[in-house]
């Protein structure tokens, strides 16, 4: 069971994710995004800027509570992947491409659930908001020593 872990600041949890098409194919230009883990969100969202960057097409409309009332937002289908760095010195699996010079080799663990998430205008320090549709698939542990883990 894959498990990510990180440090929290006492008020918010962030982690790195990769947004993939429903097919699971990893685009050549794929880059990691920063995600806020939010147990108060029922649905996962991605910023409109990230959706445009990934050339994602809307598959429908979702209604979302907003400050001014209910708003309509484009929805997208995608998979959420969590990048892991290989331990230093660990051998790479057969067929795994070598990392660019100066970078750590990364492996990707993908949550095996297609998410229908909404697009929203960002502007904060993250491009993805992970809601309970993702969190409830696994186990999220937040600890008092300033760390958290998510296994799935």
């Amino acid at each position: 069971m894959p498990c990510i872990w990180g440090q929290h600041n006492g008020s918010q949890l962030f982690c790195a994710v990769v947004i993939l098409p429903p097919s699971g194919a990893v685009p050549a230009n794929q880059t990691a995004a920063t995600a806020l883990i939010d147990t108060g969100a029922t649905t996962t969202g991605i910023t409109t800027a990230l959706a445009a960057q990934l050339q994602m097409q809307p598959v429908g409309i979702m209604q979302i509570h907003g400050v001014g009332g209910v708003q309509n937002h484009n929805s997208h289908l995608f998979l959420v992947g969590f990048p892991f760095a290989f331990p230093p010195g660990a051998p790479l699996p057969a067929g795994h491409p070598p990392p660019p010079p100066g970078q750590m080799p990364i492996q990707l663990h993908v949550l095996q659930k297609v998410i229908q998430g909404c697009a929203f205008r960002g502007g904060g320090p993250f491009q993805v908001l992970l809601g309970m549709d993702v969190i409830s698939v696994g186990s999220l542990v937040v600890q008092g020593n300033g760390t958290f883990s998510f296994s799935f």
Partner: protein
Amino acid sequence: MSAVRTKQEEVDRNFEFFQRELPNLLREHAGKFALIRTCEITGFYDTAQDAYTAGSQLYADGLFSIQRITQEIGDLGFYSHAMHLGAA
């Protein structure tokens, strides 16, 4: 108006249609995912992925929508209650 529909136009029109039909759909298909093309429902599926797979196989131009049959309104947590989301 262009004769070529864009994906955004398709999902916007399909959503207007879906909203009108939702009260009827809830009676027999609550919780399912509707596959919609040109304001017509062409199938009901248990998951969004199933609907997407069917839509991709049936419509090579990609012009279709997937709408979950529910009255629930989504919530983006902190962003829903403290930030202006901006419709997208």
